[in-house]
């Protein structure tokens, strides 16, 4: 298994290389220039050129890329052009802000979807199945940023229950999940982030459970006189590998930062940072963020695969 993990890890290197090359190229294709944000509209060409040289942006593109990758290999992510601050600090701070709400959201979605999916599969065709399916379809189809705005209007503007925007009463640096005054800032983003994976995972669980329930071995178990509870446990155990795979996939998506949700709530996570980096053409910041996200995505998938093979030995054998 360790060999397998190592091989997978090595395979991530070309993936990361590809991702960074593509992102670097995309920023270059887009019109605009990181220097423009640093210039007053009345600045002269000479001032612009000096600044461009100061950030190495006057070099040919491949050289710029290789200088960047060379630095990254020595553990240095460079400086953000827009903010004149180290990229590593920016990215890891944002990653920390995103990972916690992403984990909470996916965990919440996982637990709820297991319950809802199993119940729906067991009561297939009943009213409760229809209600759960409706919730799932709502979760899949409602745009999370729209949901975010609706939540803000209801909970913040009309009811004054929750704050509308930001991360914590005095910013993310002093944010604590154990202080209600801070925690309440996280509630609406978590709801908006939970719903889409909840929908997808509920649908998947329901389909998987009902498929298993129709298999022969369930008949056998029933014939043996097993209680419904034990039969359900068998079914759930069989669904687990698929559910864990979904968990990993959804976590990956949310870590990529739900750009829209984080923007609606001004939640200073990776999606928020990515959006900022794109709009200001802040190439070092963009590259740094992408690299960390891609690495996280690949690692999460690897972890999920390993967990899957632990809970379902058939996968390892194949």
């Amino acid at each position, binding site marked *: 298994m360790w060999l397998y993990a190592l091989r997978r890890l090595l395979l991530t290197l070309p993936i990361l290389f590809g991702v960074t090359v593509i992102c670097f190229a995309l920023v270059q294709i887009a019109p605009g220039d990181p220097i423009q944000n640093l210039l*007053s509209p009345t600045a002269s060409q000479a001032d612009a050129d000096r600044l461009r040289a100061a950030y190495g942006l006057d070099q040919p593109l491949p050289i710029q890329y290789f200088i960047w990758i060379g630095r990254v290999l020595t553990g240095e992510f460079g400086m953000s052009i827009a903010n004149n601050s180290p990229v590593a600090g*920016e990215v890891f701070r944002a990653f920390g802000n995103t990972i916690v709400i992403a984990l909470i959201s996916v965990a919440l979605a996982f637990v709820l979807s297991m319950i809802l999916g199993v119940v729906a599969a067991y009561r297939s065709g009943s009213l409760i199945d229809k209600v759960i399916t409706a919730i799932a379809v709502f979760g899949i189809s409602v745009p999370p940023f729209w949901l975010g705005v609706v939540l*803000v209007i209801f909970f913040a503007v009309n009811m004054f229950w929750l704050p509308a925007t930001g991360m914590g009463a005095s910013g993310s640096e002093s944010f604590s999940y154990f202080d209600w005054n801070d925690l309440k800032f996280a509630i609406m983003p978590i709801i908006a982030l939970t719903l889409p994976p909840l929908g997808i995972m509920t649908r998947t669980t329901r389909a998987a459970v009902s498929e298993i329930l129709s298999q022969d071995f369930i008949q056998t178990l029933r014939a043996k006189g097993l209680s419904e509870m034990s039969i359900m446990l068998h079914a759930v155990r069989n669904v687990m590998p698929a559910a864990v795979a979904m968990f990993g996939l959804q976590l990956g998506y949310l870590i990529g930062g739900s750009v829209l949700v984080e923007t609606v709530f*001004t939640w200073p996570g990776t999606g928020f940072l990515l959006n900022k980096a794109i709009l200001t053409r802040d190439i070092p910041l963009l590259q740094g963020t992408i690299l960390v996200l891609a690495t996280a995505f690949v690692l999460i998938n690897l972890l999920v695969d390993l967990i899957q093979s632990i809970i379902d030995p058939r996968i390892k054998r194949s």
Partner: protein
Amino acid sequence: MRSTNMRNAITAATVALVGFGLAVPATAAETVLRVAMTAADIPDYTGAPDQGYEGYRFAGYTLYDALALWDLSSSDKAADIVPGLATEWNIDPDDNTRWIYKLRQGVTYHDGCQWNADSAIWNFERVMKSDAPHFNPRHVGQMGTYTAQIASVEKMDDYTIAIKTKQPSSLFPYEMAMYYMISNCAVEAAGNDYAAYSAKPSGTGPYKFSSVVPHERLELVKNETYWNPDRIPKHDKLVLLPMPEASTRAAALLSGQVDFVEAPSPDTIPRLQSAGMKIVTVPYPHNWDYMFNMSKPPFDNLAVRQAANYAINRQDMVDMLQGVAIPAYQTLIDSQPWYGNPVKYEYDPDKARALLEEAGCMPCVIKVGISTSGSGQMQPLPMNELVKEQLDAAGFQVVLEPMDWNALIGVFLAGAGQYDYNAINFSMAPIDAVQGVLKKWMTRNAPPNCCNWGFYSNPKVDALGDQAIAEFDKTKRDALLTQMNEAVVADASELYIVHDLNPRALSPKLEGFVQAQSWFQDLTPIVVNP
């Protein structure tokens, strides 16, 4: 079951925390003014603000002073400059390229560093002397334009400097109202590393730096010992929060998270008012326009430019914006001294059509670069749709090319010759005669120089501009600038559309804010009631 337990736990935790909060003695009612900015990020606060003039408003004139400052104490007149870190300035009677500045005595930076001639010269070197240890290319990008005319700066005594300009420059003091002085001691203490300086920035302004959470909030506290006692802030703390989304700003104000909101979107204003928020508006030197590319057809033709101006129903636009704008008939607003009495292009679609036919451009196809957002751009998408509709109705055929703000800035900086746009919707601030008249319309300010994007050129205007720059008598100079402006309007130099009224929404708890006719505002008189 689980969720009930969770809720109970949260309730218990809340009760405990609230109880704890009550047990701690309240610190003698610190008053905090929380402002939601439209900026997407915290502006640079090291003395060279980015993010447009909003950066100057909140991270410039709060922490820092310039030799001259804008008088922001009145809503009734266009803001002009008054003494700041200099108490007076005069042109040398024997040399009309030499300005003598008397510096204010007894002023110290927030870190205790002394403000004097040495500090002033050190500050000019910051952007002018590329081999100085404290030279800062980022500051040059933002501030270099204000020192571009300076040939040299000389210390005459501890509190007098002489600034030599490259040519006679009667409006030079306006440039000096934009150039911030930062503490030389603080930069030296940071080893001339501006990233380190940004952890402890120090100016002479009415607010002192307190703390920053990158991208989220900038906290300033009042400077109790500010040199101008009238402008010591009437609140203890100023918290600045970037919130680029208008709906987020409105929600933050309505839910009590902030007290002062920049530029609420017109459609949220009725809702804000019904919740008891105060909406303040004032005309200020803002200009929402199309810059014409006059280097090629069809806008090289005066008739086509006039046709466009006659085609615009400005009142329609004002109505769409719920009255938070006023019609524009030229670049300047009418309280500015150079407004004059030029031609007025009232809405007349028939005349527009006739002019287009006369010019032989029917339908007159034009490609316009627009942005999806940006400083001063108001609500660019619906507004440009309306302009297109009106121009199309008069015989134009407008192709709108939307792009993000950064890309449009690129189009502007490159000049009209580099792209095939016939016009761009680019809002610039005509805050004074330099920005609003001279730099916009003189031939020598055409690309690659700033800011005559579309290659406007009129020898008469150039001659008037040269005279004005060399005229040190204010009345005579204003007369020349007025003539110049009138000539430019007669040439229909831009598509004049509207001036923003700069709406702001204030919590009913706030008192004392006077909205100046300026891009900059003085927050110091604001009282925050409990």
